[in-house]
């Protein structure tokens, strides 16, 4: 049985099995949710709203030789996401990467603007995400209504987490939640990718952003060298003939390749 860690409850970790989750969904829908117009599939899962229209985007793109310096605040193409879409995306993104004491949430570093840019882009490679946003948040509202009689934006943190848990679990198989599973995978991947490409995300990774250096590249810092030297020595590899640090490389013994070589 697959055990899932529900992540957004800071004080205690709740473990829910897939079966328990589905049971939960069924009981919630059975408890009170009505089903106007055959909107549910089995197991209390809302039907994916394939009929929700996805806006068409008409724009020539940024071209093959754009101005790299005047990209502009608003970007090359008109933006299509509503403020409601943006808030819905922010809520999901902030569940995926919640803020910590030292790192801001995705909503604080412009994740909504990123998705607006992405889903408004006139390229086929981004159109699947446009579709998943426009139909997916309608589905999320329906699922939230089934389970909690409220829309996605009105859900508490733990309620929203339960739905995202369902989507995460569904991403492991090809069940009735296949579109919701893809929505989870795609928006999660983009949230993470977009977040860590911000300066705040880089800082949270501990990435040391390169700054212009005068003189030779110094190479690894002392603690980084200590770490790799200890590792190399512990693996019974040779440290003394490696070219360490900036030139000149006159420390240790010289390395000469002795092998399958004409003399």
């Amino acid at each position, binding site marked *: 049985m697959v055990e899932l*860690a529900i*992540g*957004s409850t800071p004080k205690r970790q709740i473990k829910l099995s897939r079966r328990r989750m589905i049971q939960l969904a069924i009981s919630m829908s059975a408890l009170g949710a009505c089903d106007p117009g055959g909107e549910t599939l089995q197991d209390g899962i809302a039907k994916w709203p394939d009929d929700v229209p996805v806006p068409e985007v008409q724009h020539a793109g*940024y071209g*093959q*030789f*754009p101005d*790299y*310096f005047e990209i502009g605040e608003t970007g*090359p193409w008109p933006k299509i996401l509503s403020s409601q879409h943006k808030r819905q995306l922010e809520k999901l993104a902030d569940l*995926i*990467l919640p803020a*910590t004491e030292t790192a801001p949430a995705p909503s604080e570093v412009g994740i909504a603007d*990123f998705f607006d*840019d992405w889903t408004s*882009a006139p*390229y*086929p*490679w*981004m159109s699947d995400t446009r579709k998943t946003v426009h139909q997916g948040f309608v589905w999320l509202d329906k699922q939230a209504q089934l389970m909690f009689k409220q829309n996605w934006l009105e859900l508490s943190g733990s309620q929203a987490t339960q739905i*995202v848990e369902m989507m*995460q679990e569904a991403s*492991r198989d090809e069940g009735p939640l296949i579109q919701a599973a893809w929505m989870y*995978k795609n928006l*999660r*991947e983009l949230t*993470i*990718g*977009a977040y860590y*490409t911000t*300066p705040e995300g880089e800082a*949270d990774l*501990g990435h*040391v952003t*390169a700054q212009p*250096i005068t003189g030779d*590249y110094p*190479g*690894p*810092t002392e603690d*980084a060298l200590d*770490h*790799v030297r200890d*590792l*190399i020595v512990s*693996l019974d*590899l*040779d440290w003394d003939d*490696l*070219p*360490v*640090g*900036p*030139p*000149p*490389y006159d420390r240790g013994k010289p390395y*000469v*390749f002795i*092998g399958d070589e*004409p003399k």
Partner: protein
Amino acid sequence: MTNVVNEDYDVVVVGSGGGGGMAAYRLTSLGVKVCLVEQGPSQDPGEIPMFQRDNEAPLRAVGTPDKNWGYFDNGICGTWLPDQPYTSEEGANFQWYRAQVLGGRTNHYARHSPRMGPYDFIQGDLDGLSPNWPVTYEEMKPYYDATEAVVGISGANTGMYNHPGTPEDILQPAIAPRTYELLMMASARKVGVPAFQRHNAILTRNLGDRLACFYATPCMRGCSIGAAFSSSTSLIPLANKTGKLTILTRAKVCTVETDKDGKATGVTFVDTQTGIEGRIKSRAVVLAASACATAQIMLTSGKNGSKDGIANSSGQVGRNLTDTPAVRVTGKFASLENRPRYDEFGANMDHVYMPWWGYEAQKKGTMDFPRGYHIEVGQGFRDAPDLNAMKQYSDRNGLAFGEGLRDEIRRHWGSFIYLDGRGEMVANDKSYCALDAEVKNKWGYPVLRFSFEWSDYEYNQIAHMQETFSTIIERAGGEVVSGLGAPKDEISKPGGMVHEVGTTRMGTDPDSTVCNAYGQTWDVDNLYVMDGGVLPTNPHKNPTLHIMALAYRNCENLAQRLKQGEI
């Protein structure tokens, strides 16, 4: 409507990359009046987007149909260029990356600059699977020296026979290896694979007007201070200083024109912005448009659009097309999780490599592939995070979300190392480019149609790489996480390494080669080829340096013949 460029040029050079840039520099230095024609736009070095972050670009700078390799892939670049399609035979799936901007692909390349060694010129004698080159290493050595003195090379010499060094007065100091590079060097050496700091066309000391690297911006976008070599910052400015150079950009050369005696009289071109056609007259023509584009121009030229083209009595124009077979094997290192952070960017490109070591074994026939490869070492936390790369760090725990995911990503960041194999393909009959009988480009000229197949030589080499890389990764305590599938599945896509060469190869036999030892076509004595098309073989040593060294040498021949009135 036709635009005639009426200037009286000695030489038209087609293409401004490594070959064309070097030709323009060398010819103008020797007093020759040159018109350099580039299909892409001009670009002032100050306009190179060096410092922009991915999150300042649309879509976090990821690839799109407009910019296949990402927003900051500088120039009109990609495998898919809407105005200039190409076709492939079924199954060939050839990737034809083009970089159209002043300086061409030298704006983008990895700057890895190993010399060819004595063996690389005599494969005909060693295994008989390719002809010998019409020159030897001894003949080329002074031209490597001269080329490297202009280009600027940093690194360390290996001391190995077939990996010749650079004279100490030319070679600039090597760059300090990163920690993951040190680990891979130590492991490789322990299992009998040589490992050294590699030669890069990246300055660690000032050279002329160009400045030493400041170790902070991606070389693949270009380098406005000229630390990372490119033709546009490092050769064309030198040519400009002679007062002998004219540059024509946004001009796509379509054909080489000839007179009734079959001599080249210049080229025709189309202005890519207006579609207006033009003509440039000259005493000689140098084609350096890149191997396949040069073949395309030659096949399109000739009397009445003859399908055999110009300078093609051998029938070899477009044939012998090779690319570099490659595979990537990635290791995960628990010992590197949460390792100490530092500025690992360095000179952006690899600082170390493992050159081929199995020459004697191949001579003895104990290996099931005839040619060598080298190993490149990548990843760590060298590059800033990019949108597509984050999956590797975030998806290792069942697509988790919520609290804990940040720690997970931080822990894995920098704990992978990949080894990239870069091999040598043996030319075969099934790999070539030819004119497509039906499809035309935007301006009505036939496009190229590619045929391509790897052979068992390449697949066996890939298998050897996989085994070797696994050994190195595991000896260093890592666990291989990808790259060990069947060689047919793991080998790079044809054209994917952007090392396509051989389509107008040089040699000693006019019946089986297109050019002589000076890149002069056998059939048209004032038509020269100075790009990768002339390389008779495609050793694992990245092509750019050899293209430039040959151009350096062959321009002396061309200039002398012009001076003596032979042309």
